[in-house]
Structure formats: structure tokens, C-alpha cells
């Protein structure tokens, strides 16, 4: 068993980065995620593992530093919160277009605009449908506990390298600021220059070796036929992710007549809602998508043939509900899919969720 600590979600991101052999972090302060860089700077990993930590002049610079460092095959990351992620959108598109692995953490706050610093899930569309320009996808992991903040750093990097694609941890101010018990991962060594050349020498810009052609990292291709074939390759990759990387958790769904669908901190609220509903004699279960992209379409489609309705619970105006409708519609177009949520940094209460379930589905 690893080391047990009581830590904030944001602090755990930093600790997990150091322990998983991350080579570099580039970031810019923004509430509610500033503890990520603060913790890293306090830990001074450059002395311990050789990890580089740099406070950049902006989120724009941060993501481009990540792009540069990732191009050389290194394991690098950034973190920010919603407005900062919008600024990074261009860079993320370049990273996806140049097919580089990296990890981006979005500790969401409410928007639009400067919005609020309180927790929100309103960047679901931005994260799962692309966010920047062009046809691309991020691998999106949605932790619902501080433990998963730890676990998903390593998982995020693993998937990012497997697919040469940016991965995102999509969390929010509630989980970032909250402390829970966490079992920290064991240390993994950073990759050596030789390992990088052996594994990624076919593409990494780590200095041209005599035994290979020079590498170019770019997303630019002026020949449309070639650009289309690049896009086809990306789409194949995304298809493979949809087949191999879907992750979700079911909670009391076996006999459920109604299914709550919620991710991240909303899913924590909904666990309590399930308990409250069950105490009232209502057969309610919870499906928690862990990967928001690729989205768990299959389990929802399967449940759609058995249940009387779905209620998505989101801290936004109803974004994931569209994906649940699509998935449920695959096998049963008539099963009702409703949405309940709060916005602007307000977290729904477990009781509100049960009320919404009764009003929108059970009594409707």
C-alpha cells in the first residue's frame, strides 16, 4: 500500500506528477487551481527527480511550452481553470494536430467570461467536442475523488502516449479544493534520453541522430489530399479510443428503474441522491462516466432497453444530456432523457436531484 495522506485535489495533481516521472510543468496562476503550481514549487522536484517547473507569462505561453517540450518526447503537463483553458485552445489544437502526448488539467470554474471562481462543469462541450479549431478530440478523464486526481495523472499520461494525443483531466473547483484521504502512487523514474530515442525517436525532436532522418513536428500540410489523410488517421485513432478506452462506474444500477448520469463532483452528489431515493422506495441507480471522451455510449444504450428514464445531473445548462440522448436513442428512442443542473458555481443538493427526478420523470 502506498503512502496515505490527507491532501487537496490540486496538491495531489502536483504530487502525482512528480511521482509518475513527469519531466516538466508549465503553468500560470488562476483560481481555483493555483495550488497545483504552488505545491510543485514548494516540493522543488528539480532537486529530487529533475522535473522542471516554470511559471510562464500567460496560459498561451504555458501551452506552447508544453507543445515544445512534448515535441522532444518528454512527459509534460499544464493545468489551468476555464478562462485559462480557453486561452490555451489554440495550442491544444496544435498539439492534437501535431499528434503529441501531454496532460492538461482543467479545474473548472463557472462561466462564461470571467464568470465565477466557484465550481462548475460548464466546459464539458469545450473538452469533449474539441474546444479549439479543427476536427480533433482529447482523451477526457473526469475524477470524482481526490484519489482519482492522483490515479488519473499517470493514466492520463499513459493514454496520451499510447495515442500520441493530448489527454485532459476535467475536474472542478470542488474536487480541486477538497481534501480527502489519498493513497499516493509509488515513484516511477523519468525516461532517460536513450529510452526516449528508442521509443519515440521516429517522431521526437530530440536532436537528429546520424542513423535517422530529421524529425519535424508540425500540424501544417498544404497538400489537401495529405491533410485529409492526416485527418483520417486522427479519426481512426479516435475510433480506437472509443473501442478500447471507455471507462465508467455503475452504482446500484442492477434493479434500477431510473438512472442518474453524472460525472465528477456531480456524481458524488448523486450517490447521496441514490441513497435518499432508495430510502423513499424509488429504484434509482447512478452511471458515472469516467472517460467523458470516449463517452460510455454502450452501457447507456443497454440500460435504455431496461429502464424507465435517465436524468443527467450537471453543473451546467445541460451539456452531457445531449450525449446521453444520443446513446440512449441508439437502442430505444422513446426512453425519456431529462436534465437537472445548477449553474454559476452553485452545486446541486442531493435532495434537489431526487425532487427533479420525481417531477421530471416519475410523476411526468
Amino acid at each position, binding site marked *: 500500500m502506498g503512502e496515505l495522506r490527507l491532501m487537496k485535489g490540486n496538491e495531489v495533481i502536483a504530487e502525482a506528477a512528480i511521482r509518475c516521472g513527469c519531466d516538466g510543468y508549465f503553468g500560470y496562476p488562476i483560481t481555483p487551481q493555483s495550488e497545483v503550481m504552488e505545491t510543485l514549487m514548494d516540493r522543488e522536484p528539480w532537486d529530487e527527480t529533475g522535473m522542471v517547473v516554470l511559471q*510562464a507569462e500567460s496560459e498561451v*505561453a504555458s501551452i506552447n*511550452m508544453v507543445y515544445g517540450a512534448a515535441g*522532444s518526447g518528454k512527459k*509534460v503537463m499544464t493545468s489551468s481553470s476555464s478562462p485559462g483553458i480557453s486561452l490555451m485552445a489554440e495550442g491544444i489544437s496544435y498539439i492534437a494536430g501535431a499528434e503529441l502526448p501531454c496532460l492538461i488539467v482543467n479545474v473548472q470554474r463557472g462561466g462564461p467570461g470571467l464568470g465565477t471562481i466557484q465550481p462548475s462543469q460548464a466546459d464539458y462541450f469545450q473538452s469533449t467536442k474539441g474546444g479549439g479549431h479543427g476536427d480533433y478530440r482529447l482523451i477526457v478523464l473526469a475524477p470524482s475523488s481526490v484519489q482519482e486526481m492522483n490515479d488519473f495523472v499517470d493514466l492520463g499520461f499513459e493514454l496520451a502516449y499510447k495515442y500520441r494525443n493530448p489527454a485532459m483531466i476535467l475536474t472542478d473547483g470542488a474536487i480541486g479544493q477538497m481534501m480527502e484521504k489519498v493513497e499516493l502512487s509509488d515513484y516511477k523514474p523519468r525516461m532517460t534520453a536513450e529510452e526516449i530515442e528508442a521509443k519515440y525517436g521516429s517522431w521526437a525532436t*530530440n*536532436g*537528429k541522430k546520424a542513423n535517422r532522418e*530529421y*524529425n519535424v513536428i508540425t500540424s501544417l500540410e498544404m497538400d489537401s489530399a495529405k491533410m485529409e489523410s492526416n485527418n483520417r488517421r486522427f479519426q481512426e485513432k479516435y475510433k480506437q479510443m472509443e473501442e478500447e478506452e471507455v471507462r465508467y462506474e455503475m452504482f446500484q444500477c442492477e434493479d434500477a428503474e431510473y438512472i442518474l448520469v453524472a460525472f465528477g463532483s456531480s456524481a458524488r452528489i448523486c450517490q447521496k441522491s441514490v441513497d435518499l431515493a432508495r430510502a423513499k422506495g424509488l429504484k434509482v441507480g447512478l452511471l458515472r462516466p469516467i472517460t467523458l471522451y470516449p463517452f460510455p455510449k454502450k452501457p447507456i444504450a443497454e440500460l435504455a432497453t431496461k429502464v424507465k428514464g435517465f436524468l443527467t445531473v450537471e453543473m451546467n445548462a445541460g451539456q452531457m444530456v445531449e450525449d446521453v440522448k444520443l446513446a440512449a436513442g441508439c437502442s430505444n428512442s422513446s426512453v425519456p432523457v431529462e436534465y437537472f443542473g445548477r449553474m454559476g458555481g452553485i452545486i446541486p443538493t442531493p435532495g434537489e436531484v431526487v425532487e427533479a427526478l420525481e417531477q421530471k420523470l416519475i410523476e411526468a
Partner: protein
Amino acid sequence: MDIKDIIKPENLVYEKPKLLTDKTMHYCPGCTHGVVHRLVAEVIEDLNIQEKTIGVSPVGCSVFAYNYIDIDWQEAAHGRAPAVATGIARVNEDKVVFTYQGDGDLASIGTAEIMHACNRGENIVVIFINNAIYGMTGGQMAPTTLLGQVTATTPCGRDLDRNGYPLKITELIAQLPGTAYVTRQSAHTPATARKCRKAIKKAFQNALDKKGTSFVEVVSTCNSGWRLNPVDANKWMEENMFPFFPMGDMKDGERDAPDAYFKKN
């Protein structure tokens, strides 16, 4: 002497640097980029650092710089080359990283990135091609366009009230404590090209010696954008740009000692 004698190795007086690839350059005839690419390739060859050099190409005419020099390259988003170079250099301390940027890329959209990279004293080389116009997008006004200069977006000449002043960014960069070497060169004659080559070599040597940021501006022509033939473009540059962008070193040494920058207690 027939042709066979002329091409004998012992008669060789000029050759293409080995690191320049055989790809046909997309630059217009008369463009300064070709010359500066050659100089950069020669310097990398001279210093024998092909295996440790990583180039960062910009958005602009030199976006395809990566087609022409036989080293690893990364293509940056518009203006972000100094941030990309920072990322590479920070996690690869043993490498020599340089950016190659035009005036729109470096002095307009990328002002924040170049200022902060130079101010931090990133151990990188910056090659800055200043031809006072946006070449790739068809000759629009650049931050370094002179007052009165005609471009696609200043058809009656750059107007102070409408467009503001041309920006002497290299003079600003020279004030930043992180820079070790800041110079302005040209490459329009054999003599100036040789001088420019020396400057570029010093900049790369500085990176090997971990001295901080080295910044080489090359005042250049864009005869297509300027609507002039190459000879007239050179003349126009000498008459109009050189007085405003005077040649020479602005800083040569090492980045500033930290003493003057510390808090007092």
C-alpha cells in the same frame, strides 16, 4: 581549362552547406531568407552541433524553414516560437534551441512571448528577420513598417494617427537583463553576409556556453511585398530602413549579474 577541370575538388571555392537539404526553396528570388538559412546551416555545421540543435519555425514566409535544414524542427503557432523554444530548452538542457521568426511573428502577435523569453534569459538563439512587411499573407503592414511605407493595408502609406509608430523591438530587447547578445545585421552583400554569419555563430556559441538569450536581427528585403526588383529592394532598404534600423551590436557579453535585481531585505 574545360568544365571537368573546373569542378575538380581542389578548385572548389564555394559549395552548398551539407546541412542545406536539396528541396527547392519556396522563397521569391531576391528574398533574404535563403541567404540567412544558408548562414544558419553553415554555423550549425561549423560548430558540429547537428545532433543537438532543434529549430523552431514560425508562422510567416519562413513557416517552411523546416524543409531546408537537416536538423530536428518544430513548427510553432503564430508568435509562440519563443515559448515553444523555452519548453524544448528547459527539458533538454544539453540541446541548442533556436527560433527563426519574422517581424509580424516576433514583434506583433508574439510580443509577450519574445519579451518574457528574453527577460528570463532562456538559453536560446533568436534569429529575427525584419523586412517591414507581412510577406506570406500578401504584403500587409507589419509592426516595423516605416511611416509613409505603402503596404496592402496602408495603401496611402503608414499613417501615424491611424497606425502608430514603427516598433524598434530589438532596442527594447537589448534592455532586457536576460539577453547576452543583441545585434542588428544585414545580409545583402557578401561583406554584410559574412558579418552576419559571424554574429549568428556567436549567438549559437553563446547557447553552447549557456550565456542566456542571443538575439540576431537581420534587416531584410521583401522585394515581392515591396513591389520592387531585388536590386532596387536592396537600394530601398539601404536608403529607408538602415537609417531607422541602424546596424551593429546593442549588447555583447552575458546576461546581467543578479545583484541589482534583488530585494533589499
